[in-house]
């Protein structure tokens, strides 16, 4: 068993890219042209953001998406599609769009990603409220123990209607990481298996506010550590209790 994972690449795409600057991070703009028209037409903005981040992470890691198993972690998933369907359902006789229906499942983004890249590898879609990123990283870690190599972890949530769980969903964010448990020389950063922290870590009010608005923002401390080369520090993976964390390090 290898407790350490190597982070081969990271990418982040956010509706508030300017606010990411507060954390010293640079978000990429959503690229709606990454999918062919037949997929693009039907894909939600959340799927497009997740695909944007995932594509960039794969590119930076020089990884072929077709070869990567993947974990997609999100609290609300396709919440805009689900919202539209719930509004339609309120009318007893209203027609329900078959495309919207099959696009409302939590693994829609995972499905589109697989279709886009002809990827036959295992993919999963999970949800864990505030712990979604932590549980996504844990599942990715466990999958790499079972099948050594590389894996894609995408954590994302879109803008939600404001009557669901405000302020959650007032920012949209997608992050993607290519992780590996076989290290090579050019790999720089590692994380350990997520674990519950004994002494809770301090969270800045700015970050706390961001994660209340977008639970996928729990990735920010890890991205900041990579930027700042904070080797050998314990990084929080959520802002609530119990707190999950990982030991961030450097392979050199």
């Amino acid at each position: 068993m290898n407790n350490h994972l190597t982070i081969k690449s990271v990418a982040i795409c956010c509706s508030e890219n300017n606010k990411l600057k507060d954390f010293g991070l640079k978000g990429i703009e959503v690229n709606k042209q990454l999918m062919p028209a037949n997929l693009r037409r039907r894909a939600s903005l959340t799927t497009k953001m997740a695909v944007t981040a995932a594509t960039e992470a794969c590119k930076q890691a020089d990884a072929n998406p077709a070869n990567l198993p993947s974990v997609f972690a999100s609290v609300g998933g396709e919440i805009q599609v689900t919202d539209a369907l719930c509004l339609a359902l309120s009318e007893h006789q209203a027609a329900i769009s078959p495309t919207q229906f099959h696009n409302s499942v939590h693994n829609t983004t995972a499905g589109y990603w697989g279709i886009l890249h002809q990827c036959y590898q295992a993919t999963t879609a999970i949800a864990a409220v505030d712990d979604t990123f932590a549980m996504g990283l844990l599942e990715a870690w466990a999958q790499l123990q079972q099948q050594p190599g590389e894996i894609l972890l995408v954590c994302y949530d879109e803008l939600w209607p404001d009557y669901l769980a405000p302020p959650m969903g007032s920012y949209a964010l997608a992050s993607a990481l290519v992780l590996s448990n076989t290290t090579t020389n050019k790999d720089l950063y590692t994380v350990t298996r997520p674990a519950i922290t004994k002494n809770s870590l301090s969270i800045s009010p700015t970050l706390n506010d961001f994660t209340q608005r977008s639970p996928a923002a729990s990735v920010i401390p890890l991205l900041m550590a990579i930027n700042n080369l904070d080797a050998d520090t314990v990084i929080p993976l959520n802002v609530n209790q119990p707190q999950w964390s990982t030991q961030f390090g450097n392979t050199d």
Partner: protein
Amino acid sequence: MNGFKDSSLSHFKPIPVTAFTTINSCGLGNNALYQAMLNSQSGLGELTILDIPFTTPVGEIKNELPAIRPELVAYDSRNAKVALAALNFSEDGLRTAIEVAKSNYGSDRIGVVIGTSTSGLSETEIAYQVLLKQGKMPDDFHFLTRHAYQATPRSLQKELQLNGPCFAVSTACSSGAKAIAAGQRLINYDVCDAVLVGGVDTLCRLTLRGFNSLELVSSDLCHPMDKNRNGINIGEGAGLLLLQKPAIQYHHLPHVLSVGESSDAYHMSSPHPEGKGAVAAMSNAINLAGLKPDDVDYINLHATATLINDQVEAKAVYEVFNDSVPCSGSKGITGHTLGAAGAIEAIVALLALQHQMIPGTCGLQELDNNFDCHVIKNSLPDQTLQTVMSNSFGFGGNNACIIFSKGYE
């Protein structure tokens, strides 16, 4: 013993299932489901809990459901109640086994991973009616603790006062099976000593009307693998299993050998026409378990009773197993319980092992003569089963195949 030999995969080992139970339209507990399997007795019938603009038989739970504790009222949903009913069914001993595990290992070492596709959607649908009438959600609307996917595993975690990893897997109709895969990993790689896994789904307007608009719902009782099959009947239920780290005292119990997972990379709601993903899931499961196809003694098919799904699955099963392995589908008994199906049908496979029988395919009258795999119509008692398999295939082309082995004598 098959599957217990050393694998080349480090730390990958069979994981004992120390307790399991189910609730579905056949009733509460394993025995109700076993009796229905033995007698090909359908639990499908009229929909009474919801009003929808068409007629279709459903697998509705008729049992009275327990109340959610007042402290957990924010989690109150039909999904949470269905899960609680199963958890509390004392005859199958699940809750007792969890309490014992908790006292042995500590609550931090026990995880909860539950598959669901609906979670509390039926309550959300009602809340939306209020939203449209009054311009705001009702005061007792709790999106994150009722509607959201993670609401179901969290309600179980809170009810049991556990503190380990807790998350929902939601990959449509393979959710319940994928949750078992995730649970096996958490134990295999020493994150947990026990994990409550399974699947829970409840009837709601979205799934009934959504599948109907895809023209996949049958207005009659479903006929899995039948030449006249014309669609699914939707059901609801829960299948819950306790996985624990291997120990000598559990050797006699059934074990999860492996879960094979794959993607179709083809279409959101239609399977790969050549069954590429289904073949990959079954082959991965066999390889992970260190088995050969001939070692499998029975396959519980996904067999939804739609034209295309059954056709593709029959082709895929034949490609991997030829016609050598008896197989059958159980959705004529329970209906298609969607996010719970992978877990409830894992329990069908476990009950087949436990009772050394092969269930029939309830609803099958005349086998589609294009199918070459070995489909069983009427249940067969007095079998010798060592290794059984259960298939689950979901929207998005998300596939999972579980292999269980009988315990040591």
